[in-house]
């Protein structure tokens, strides 16, 4: 009887975890391992697959398109992630106050998150059309010369960053707001007694107390931005002059446009490695201290 109880108790947690574990294995672990293994194979005449050690990686590092897309991916992350987090914190602090129309403000700010990225990209594409776009029409009313927007290598990347921030800030803000609402008011009261000003309150109470939410947001946001694909696919196709060609878009092109799956798997494997390294560094610096 006792052993039956022990067995049941021992098995129960595993059974509860099993459905999630199966899904993670099928949809996450399996594709990752498939890509890593696939990156060591090349397709030869007749569609025959051959083991080729690091041939795909050798081709990649000799390809200026790949090195450019690596640099573009870093550039995007250097800007998008900090902008989204700083604006997210600012908006969370603003919306954490009690003012009359706070619920309306929260809803309005959250609207971009509710719009599908494909739809949002299509709308931005129409707005930013150099010839018939409404933004250039408004510029013309103020005597500003028409801008090339997404057709200019100097403007396209900035616009992708702006669109991604517009779309993502409110999403991360919700997590930060939740973290902010868990900060005990007694800490602020104690701070006031000690004579803290606004900035001291922000940097010594608010942000440190939001550390767990902030850690989640920084890591998740970095991962999502490293794998950025939809706005590039929808708006620029990696151009003009490769200025918005991210690693994910390059992996897509290799697989679905060139049927060069070995190249695509290699890019994805490199991207995974980069993600692990960056997340590892972030976790090291953001680890909880007593």
């Amino acid at each position, binding site marked *: 009887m006792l052993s039956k109880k022990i067995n049941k108790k021992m098995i129960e947690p595993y059974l509860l975890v099993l459905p999630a574990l199966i899904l993670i*294995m099928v949809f996450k*672990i*399996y594709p990752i*391992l*498939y890509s890593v*293994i*696939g990156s060591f*194979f*090349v*397709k030869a*005449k*007749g*569609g*025959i*697959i051959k083991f080729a050690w690091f041939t795909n990686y050798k*081709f990649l590092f*000799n*390809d*200026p*398109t*790949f090195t450019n897309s690596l640099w573009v991916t870093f550039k995007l992350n250097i800007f998008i992630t900090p902008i989204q987090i700083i604006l997210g914190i600012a908006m969370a602090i603003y919306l954490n106050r009690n003012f009359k129309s706070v619920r309306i403000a929260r809803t309005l700010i959250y609207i971009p998150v509710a719009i599908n990225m494909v739809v949002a990209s299509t709308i931005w594409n129409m707005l930013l*059309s*150099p*010839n*018939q*776009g409404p933004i250039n029409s408004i510029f013309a009313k103020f005597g500003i010369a028409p801008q*090339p927007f997404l*057709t*200019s*290598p100097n403007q396209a990347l900035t616009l992708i960053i702006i669109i991604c921030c517009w779309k993502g800030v409110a999403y991360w803000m919700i997590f930060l707001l939740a973290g902010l609402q868990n900060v005990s008011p007694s800490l602020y009261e104690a701070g006031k007694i000690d004579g803290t000003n606004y900035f001291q309150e922000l940097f010594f109470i608010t942000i440190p107390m939001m550390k767990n939410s902030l850690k989640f947001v920084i890591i998740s946001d970095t991962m999502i931005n490293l794998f950025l694909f939809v706005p590039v696919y929808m708006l620029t*196709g*990696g*151009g*003009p*002059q*490769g200025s918005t060609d991210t690693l994910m878009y390059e992996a897509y*092109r290799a697989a*679905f*446009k*060139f*049927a*060069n*799956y070995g*190249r695509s798997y290699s890019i994805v494997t490199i991207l995974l490695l980069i993600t692990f390294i960056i997340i590892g560094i972030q976790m090291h610096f953001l680890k909880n201290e007593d």
Partner: protein
Amino acid sequence: MKKLFVFLIILVVSCSFIFAQGKTEVTEEASTSSTIKFITYGGYHDALTAVVEAFEKSHPGVTVEMEEFPFNQLFDAIEIKMGSKDDNYDVILTDAPMLTGYAYNGFIAPMEEYMTEEEMNSFTDALKDSSMYDGKFYAPPLKNSCAIVWYNKDILDKTGIPYPSSEYEDRMTWSEFSDICIKVRNANDPSVYGFTFEQISRPYQVLVLPNSLRAEGIGPDGITVDGFVNSPEFIESMQWYQDIHNKLDISPKGVAPAETQALFTAGKLCFLAGNMFDYKTFENTPDLNYGYMPLPYFENGTPVTPTDSWHVGLSNYSKNKELAAEFIKYLTLYEGNDIYLDVQGDFGARKDVLNNYLVDDNFSEFPKTSFRLAAKEAMNTAKPRPLILGYREWESIMTSTMEDIRNNAPVKEALDNAVNSIAAQLAIYK
């Protein structure tokens, strides 16, 4: 225990990868199904439906199922389905330059077993060549294509310019042509442009510019691009392509290929270098007063027009090859091809059809007289796109480069970058 678990996972994934990718042998089972599954382009829906209905009528008990895709998704769909060796599909319709890659990858089977020498020689020499890979005849052409320049007579009237000649012999140079476009731009509302290629920045049409200066898009080995894509003649022609969009401002920027016909039918464009079968859209546009002329050429060069076809391939993984090959022949050579050309109003790939345009009274009145100009172009000035293994890579990079040049990127630098990118991509074929 942990190590064993990790080892087992890697083993399972490795095996599944190798078995999924390495299934190279196709089971040649006896044909048990009387259904032909056909991956095709949605733009030919009506014509192909008519062919399918006629085929089913003449082959009782046989069903042809069409799976249609828009142009932008068709090639990705074929790569995915054929790349996974899906044996549910029997016939694929695809653009000419894809054939080399499909044959190399084993997606399609040669048709020589199912066609006679005479049948294979029924097509124009250029299109027969486009159907070959490694000395074998793979996929017969469904149709033909040719570019001519359509013009809006009302805009020319307003500008005070006489209508250009539609005769094959009276061809303008690009320089004479751009002078007319500048006049059009100056005499009309700023929203009216002079000229655009219908397929903006796509090599199918734009490659005629360097070709007209005798420059090639790739070397004879099908891999070398350095010295070809960045040759002085190529640069000169691409400089003109950039100028018409920027310095001369006769061609619109920010317009996609799908929007060019609408620009022309809306009276916002005077000249459109389009396909000769565009007349079907123009005929259905009320109050559009239009004409046509041959595609210009560079003064120090030679007249060149684009050509290519959609080809019908037999899936290498089909379990129903005999029946599928029967359908392919019906669609490209016999009654099915006549039905297709008639319903679609398209331009034929067979020599007998081309010769017929020059004498048949059905083609003696405007706008069908354009078939006569196109037939002459097809026999004299037509040049297909490069037939190379890495065509998709080449085309993708060239399209982006042409688009960058259109958007005012430094021409030589853009072409040098294209050379580096293409060379890196095509290295796997060496």
